[in-house]
């Protein structure tokens, strides 16, 4: 059984924002929203780190739990998808999201915020896979084609890893052993192992 995850190697991310750009382009994400962004920690300091972040497709996803209209749902691969037809723009998912993933076209009260948009792990939405309707609402469905998210597949430094959690974990661990240092898997505890003690 696969469990799809994202993992950003903070030692490799160079804050080029290509992932955010490629994502916007691949999915025709409307003006005013980004599904993926890069956050820089300790900017300008000796321990500066950049991390690309989007929806992490959490285990026991809080956004799905708080959604009042059952717009959000999770698939057996761990991918959290949304249904734009039932979204009412209340913003609860944004309050519950540990990674600031849900985006809204407007910053106003609920109702006028518009339909929520978030990273789909390049897996479209509830419409028929690969259909015109799905593309116009959610962007490209790469998972249906057996591909992984474009942000990770085109990352020039391979900082951003996407795919089966065990496989990318293994790649990351080998990499850390090889180079001798690493700051760990950012966000994984909150996203995937909320009940685990570390």
């Amino acid at each position, binding site marked *: *059984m696969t*469990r799809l995850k994202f993992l950003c190697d903070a030692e490799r991310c160079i804050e080029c924002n290509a992932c955010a750009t490629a994502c916007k382009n691949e999915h025709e994400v409307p003006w005013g*929203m980004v599904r993926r*962004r890069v*956050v*820089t*920690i*300790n900017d300008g300091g000796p321990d500066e780190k950049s*991390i690309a972040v989007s929806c992490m497709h959490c285990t*026991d996803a*809080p956004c799905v*739990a708080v*959604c009042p*209209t*059952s*717009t959000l749902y*999770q*698939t*057996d*691969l*761990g991918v959290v998808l949304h249904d734009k037809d*039932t979204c*009412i723009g*209340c913003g*609860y998912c*944004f309050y*519950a*999201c*540990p*990674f*600031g993933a849900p*985006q809204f076209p407007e*910053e106003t*009260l*609920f*109702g006028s915020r518009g339909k929520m948009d978030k990273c789909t792990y390049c*897996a479209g939405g*509830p419409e028929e*896979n*690969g259909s015109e309707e799905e593309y116009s609402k959610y962007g490209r469905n790469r998972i249906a*084609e*057996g*591909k992984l998210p474009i942000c*990770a*597949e085109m990352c020039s430094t*391979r900082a951003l890893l996407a795919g*089966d959690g065990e*496989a*990318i*974990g293994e790649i*990351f*661990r080998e990499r850390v052993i090889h180079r001798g240092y690493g700051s*760990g*898997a*950012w*966000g994984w*505890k909150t996203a995937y192992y*909320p009940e*685990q003690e*570390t």
Partner: protein
Amino acid sequence: MTDQAHPNRGRDFTGYRIGGGVAALLLVIALGWQIFEIIDGDAMTVPETQWQVSDAPEGDAGQMSATEVLIARTQLMDERFQAGPSPEAEALKFAIGPGPHLDERPLEDGGRNIAEDWLLADAETLEMVRPSERVVGTSSLPYPNAEIFERPGGRDWRLGMADTVTHLGAVIILGFSLLLAMMLALRGRVPIAKGRSGRTVKRFGFLERANHWMTATSFIVLGLTGIVIAYGDTLIRPFGADLLGALGNVATWGHALFFPPFALGVLIMILLWTWRNLPAKEDARWLAKAGGFFSDDGNNPPAKKFNAGQKLVFWSAALGGIAMILTGVTLMFPYFWADLEVMTWVMLVHAVLATVLIGIFIGHIYIGTVGMQGAIWAMWNGKVDRNWAEEHHEFWVKELHERGELKQGG
């Protein structure tokens, strides 16, 4: 006038009492269910759909293929010297173009097992994960909150919102309704002990009544739309996710639409009634006797125009209304004065207060309609029966007498 030897008794309203009993029975069931929801610990997000290779047989075989396809693709994430891109590299199955695709289908059962499996981590994985902590940096992207990388507090908010406040709010509303239904079933209505006199006293003017009903209508619409948003998943989703989406949309707009008349109504109410609702000496006695609610003799503790119970309702409307307006307006203008974390708390306060106020005003509606004989007319046509007024607002009637505003025959 009713014969003094047989004063009206609350227990004689048999129809009302049967209705109360039926309502109480239904409420006990609903209340038990909501309490069970709080303690059953099943609040977990579980997968609802599964990916399979199209045209693959239902069941394990199809799922295995989807897994294989994606794991094979994940290997491409490895270092370039190991994973390409290289013209000599083996072409991937399912890479591009026509041919088999992965499809999503509804997952009938087993979702919970999958989700629980995900929570298990091996020692190697646990070694590489960083602890949960709030991480804020900077971002070159110009979007609100883009600089927040991680806020584990989101999970706490989910616990507060979805698992606690929702069911606790339901318990408040249902529990209060249950108390009232039991009251109606066991005690009956509060009667006009001496019966109707046939003469009336003017209690509320047109402005007071018009404003009361504007505020009341807005409050009920705000309450119902809020309930669609808070409890639609339980109450409406069984009739279809699309219906829930459509009603939810109406509810969000309705909630915003009925805010201005509500706010205006609360404001006018405060201007009209505050000075008559300031605490007074007789209030303590009234409260100590529970307003004479449980006795049928009509010898209730005396009160001026508003008794202590009515004062409490007024202050709930005034203070509760202001709190709801302030929290609501905060939510209408994101990040104007409150940042994301403050807004999440404001949202919780708004939700908790809403359920408390709904509970209080169910009580207010109860006592104004089925709970007390003759009470509805105060707000309906503004004129109450003289005997009702004397039994519940002795000082007020005396005051009217002294001012000569009380004509014989009403």
